[in-house]
């Protein structure tokens, strides 16, 4: 099986936020929740870079390790998913996540955050593939339809790559070799304990 990964080529990202919009629309993500977002570093200064970030589907995922009710699981494609039926909305996964991926429907006090929501790599949840229940809780399951995550598919500059880690690493390597520069695979060292040698 493929080991699914995200890679944002920061030298291509133009901060258009199409990935964010595509994600929100595809999964009908409620107001206030952002499974994906674009963060701009050194905004307005020389060397400014924008990076589209969501759940990186880490190897040995920290969210899964700290969850008090063990609601996370990893699919055969190494996509990190969770069960909203088991989630108690404690917020611990947000403390552990290096990428700020977990989102909560309520900003409420007294621990009433509601069930956690995060990027599913367009792979749904534990319910039957593409069932109504799965769609309502987790959004579309494009992987089950043989499609890749919509954010990357929609990316206007093909900055955001999603798919088999080896394949997207190879694409990135070729790009860097051809254009002669590359600011690296953001988050890879933290998420996968490896980076792309260019």
């Amino acid at each position, binding site marked *: 099986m493929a080991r699914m990964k995200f890679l944002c080529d920061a030298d291509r990202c133009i901060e258009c936020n199409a990935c*964010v919009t595509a994600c929100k629309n595809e999964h009908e993500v409620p107001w206030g929740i*952002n499974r994906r977002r*674009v963060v701009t570093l050194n905004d307005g200064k020389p060397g400014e870079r924008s990076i589209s970030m969501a759940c990186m589907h880490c190897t040995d995922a920290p969210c899964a390790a*700290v969850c*008090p009710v063990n609601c996370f699981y990893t699919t055969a494609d190494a996509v990190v998913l969770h069960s909203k039926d088991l989630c108690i909305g404690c917020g611990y996964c947000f403390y552990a996540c290096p990428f700020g991926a977990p989102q909560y429907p309520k900003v409420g006090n*007294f621990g009433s955050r509601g069930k956690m929501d995060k990027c599913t790599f367009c792979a749904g949840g534990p319910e039957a593939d593409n069932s109504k229940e799965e769609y309502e809780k987790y959004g579309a399951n494009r992987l089950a339809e043989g499609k890749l995550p919509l954010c990357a598919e929609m990316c206007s500059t093909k900055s955001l790559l999603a798919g088999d880690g080896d394949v997207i690493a190879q694409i990135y390597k070729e790009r860097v070799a051809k254009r*002669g520069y590359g600011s690296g695979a953001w988050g890879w060292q933290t998420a996968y304990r490896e980076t792309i040698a260019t």
Partner: protein
Amino acid sequence: MAEVFAQMRLIAAVLALAFVVATAMPAAAQQPNSVNPTAAAVKEQQLLQQFKTIKGLGTIPDTKSYVLEHPGGREWREYRTVTLKWIGGIAILGILALLTIYYLWHGSMRIEAGRSGRKLLRFSVFERFVHWLTGVAFVILGLTGLNITFGRSLILPWMGASTFSEWTEWGKFAHNYISFAFTVGVVLMFFMWVARNLPTSADIEWFMKGGGMFGGEEPPAHKFNGGEKLIFWISMLGGGAVAVTGYILLFPFYGTDITTMELAQVVHSTVALLYVAAMFVHFYMGTIGVEGAFEAMADGTVDVNWAKERHLLWYEEEKQLGAAPSEAMRQPAE
């Protein structure tokens, strides 16, 4: 006419396109080939070395999301999944083991002179109410808190995923709301008992002699002996610390950032586990550890002989105030 206009538009479009291409070409040709667009680009490794958290700017209202990367979460994870379990496990099991060994070796502290049959009021209704308000809240908070730390490894396997999840969610709500009762209890307890819990010279003697727990007479004590004062101050400082950090956790990201939230959780869980361990000593002393002690918090009275042996100075104070039964009443009524 319409056709003429359409043709004119087409010609205009072609001219415009030609103009754009013509003006753009020289500009592109002027670009030197040696420019490295990433020469000044931000580098992930460099940022991670400089700051523990990489933060930028975003376009959505949620400012938490402007944190791009926070590898510090890994340290918190290590703390929660490994370090905390060791601290809590050693503290709680260690205290339980020590208490068991002590009980087997020493047994209960008996009322040496036997029961006199005469009772002395030790705790008023209000004192007992505050004690049990805090105590019951503490037990619920303790059990639901321990469940968050140890439940996944100890209870989940036999309870099953969905039942455990349901119970833990109820536990979370109980933990969040009962915290208010606990805080009220701690505050009332502080004002109610602080004057009698200030350290005195009698406490030094009490501790020097081990409180009579390891043989010998129990040194005379006021209403609270050295050990009880220690429990009081552990409850006040521990209770204060878990309350403050607990409210930070209860109102997530209100003036706090991810690092503060993690720190609050670390302090909250560590202090709470040590607090629970310390309270096992209190539970022991208040029940099987000391004969005649539990009734002080049940109906509020203690036996006069218990008062003389455990809290001689307090007994004498009470006698002077006329609260204690006088010597003349010593003869049993027959």
